[in-house]
């Protein structure tokens, strides 16, 4: 009787062990891709589209030494990304940076995208503290669209863009942010 029980339990344990082993291996093999998929899902598609049209993910730039270098030399720089599309093709680079000039209520955070041939593909504000309805309008496409297509290596002068009427400080802050991104791009990335 007892022998039989051990045999029965043994068979189940063996099958269970083999199954668990196979699954452990497969789990490991797919871990990275799954993490990537989940990360992609959590990135706001609106931001992806506004900064680099057609992109599905911003991956941190592989050259981490370069990123460290930029961080040590540029105080307001946050991070450098490679924008990829659904097939994994590189669409361009994205700089994440603080503004260098304070807005009405504080600094703002930007993503600025650059195409391979050095043009600005788009820019969005990730966070800010400006007045709702006034300075906050720097987040609107009406304002940010004007930067699309501009030369990503040339700093934009104060007379070369349209500020938001009645929100000069916020506009200047945004300008400083995008110019910082341009400076980083021109010096370290291009």
């Amino acid at each position, binding site marked *: 009787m007892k022998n039989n029980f051990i045999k029965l339990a043994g068979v189940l344990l063996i099958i*269970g062990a083999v*199954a*668990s082993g196979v*699954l*452990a291996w*497969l*789990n490991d093999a797919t871990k990275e891709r799954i993490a990537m998929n989940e990360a992609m899902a959590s990135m706001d598609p609106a931001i992806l589209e506004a900064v680099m049209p057609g992109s599905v993910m911003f991956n941190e730039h592989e050259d981490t030494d370069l990123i460290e270098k930029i961080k040590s030399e540029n105080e307001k720089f946050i991070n450098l990304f490679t924008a990829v599309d659904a097939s994994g093709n590189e669409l361009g680079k994205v700089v994440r940076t603080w503004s260098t000039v304070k807005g009405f209520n504080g600094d703002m955070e930007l993503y600025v995208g650059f195409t391979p041939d050095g043009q600005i593909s788009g820019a969005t504000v990730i966070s800010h503290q400006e007045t709702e309805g006034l300075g906050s309008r720097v987040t609107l496409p009406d304002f940010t669209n004007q930067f699309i297509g501009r030369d990503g290596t040339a700093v934009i002068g104060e007379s070369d863009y349209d500020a938001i009427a009645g929100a000069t400080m916020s506009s200047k802050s945004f300008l400083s942010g995008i110019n910082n991104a341009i400076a980083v791009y021109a010096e370290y990335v291009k």
Partner: protein
Amino acid sequence: MELVSLFITSFLVNNIIFMQFLGVCPFLGVSKKIDTAAGMGIAVIFVIALASVITYIIHHAVLVNLELEYLQTIVFILIIAALVQFVEMFLKKSAPGLYQALGIFLPLITTNCAVLGVAINNIIFEYSFVESLVYSIATSAGFMLAIVLFAGVRDKVDYADLPESLKGSAISLVTAGLMSIAFLGFAGLQL
């Protein structure tokens, strides 16, 4: 009270059979006798509630800590299978009448999508222990409501004059569909 809202939503608005489609197989095959259906319903509530508690604990205390989440499906279904075995043995001794009446449907509770579905949903929706308990009891009560109502309706359907092809599961499904429309009405329930 959020828990009350969770209860009503899981019981009616997102009724497990008519809205989520979990547990449809036993639902269609269940007896036309209301008391057998009620007995089945109670057995299911018991199994789902107990299964939810056990799988919840095992998941959070064991699987997550050992990073073995990928074993969730195997572990959960084995827990459910074992649980149903115990319920079977228990009923055989203490309620043999019900045991006989339920027949094959009792072991089939193991493969009832509702049981595993609720256990998994507790994890996906990231419920707290109390929330998962409320959710599983409410959901399985919804199951019981559905099969009891259906048993009542099926009785009447038998007297209807139907084309031969529609008899059996076909008309059962259509009937369930009409009941589902009724339950859609709960969607407007603001809690």
